[in-house]
């Protein structure tokens, strides 16, 4: 289970609205390499991990991704807060406004709604952890693209924090994959299937 803490993982305080950046950043809320997908991927995959340590890594990184989802939602919220509809439309958010007003909804930068088809949960720990390594790199690359799209330090600062977390997660998943492979190497079969 989870307990909510009434704070963000890292401060978000954006003083200047920017609907264009909101339209780009929302991809880390509901896009294929975003935080919602990351969280669901790890929290789903953890059930079938072969060791308690691997379950711990997936459980805790999946939980941290929920905190990142909240940070990204907060950024989008602050970037469009109070922006009049004409401005939203001018900067490419007319279609978004039609369906969601100023609310936060999981879509990618092109407006495509979140799809669980963007990740897998294979039950094969090597396949799953290898996907997780790639996912962290794709998220890191997306944060770098977003950083390159803005000059606002209020926006860049939390994006840099999120980028750095992807690098740490990549490191931890790499260590977890190594240990799982060592463990599986000791056994006669690659995976202990319960059937």
């Amino acid at each position: 289970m989870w307990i909510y803490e009434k704070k963000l993982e890292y401060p978000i305080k954006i003083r200047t609205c920017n609907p264009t950046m909101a339209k780009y950043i929302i991809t880390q809320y509901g896009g294929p390499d975003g935080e919602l997908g990351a969280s669901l991927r790890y929290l789903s995959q953890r059930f079938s991990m072969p060791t308690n340590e691997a379950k711990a890594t997936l459980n805790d990184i999946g939980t941290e991704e929920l905190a990142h989802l909240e940070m990204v939602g907060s950024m989008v919220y602050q970037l469009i807060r109070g922006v009049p509809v004409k401005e939203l439309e001018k900067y490419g958010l007319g279609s978004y406004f039609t369906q969601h007003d100023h609310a936060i909804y999981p879509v990618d930068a092109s407006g495509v709604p979140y799809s669980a088809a963007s990740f897998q949960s294979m039950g094969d720990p090597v396949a799953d952890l290898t996907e997780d390594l790639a996912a962290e790199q794709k998220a890191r690359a997306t944060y770098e693209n977003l950083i390159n799209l803005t000059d606002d330090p209020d926006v860049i600062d939390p994006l840099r924090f999120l980028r750095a977390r992807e690098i740490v997660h990549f490191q931890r998943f790499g260590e977890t994959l190594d240990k799982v492979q060592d463990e599986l190497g000791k056994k006669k079969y690659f995976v202990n299937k319960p059937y």
Partner: protein
Amino acid sequence: MDMDCERAIREVMAADFTCYDLALYLNTHPFDTRALAVYYSSVQRARSLRENYERMCGPLTAQASTRTLNCWEWALTPWPWEWQ
């Protein structure tokens, strides 16, 4: 949010972050006793900063919403994406 609370919550956030990050490290290095010792002292520091914030500014979790018997503070204090 007033200045003292903002300073206090930033201290809690930084101290808690140290704990999360060390915990991720310990998940893949569960026998690193040096890191464990740092973890214990980080948790203690985070705990005391949290108590200080909650005493001064309001609850971080629903179960910490016990500062007053006059109202349910958990639902009345501002949400973090709206902190100004």
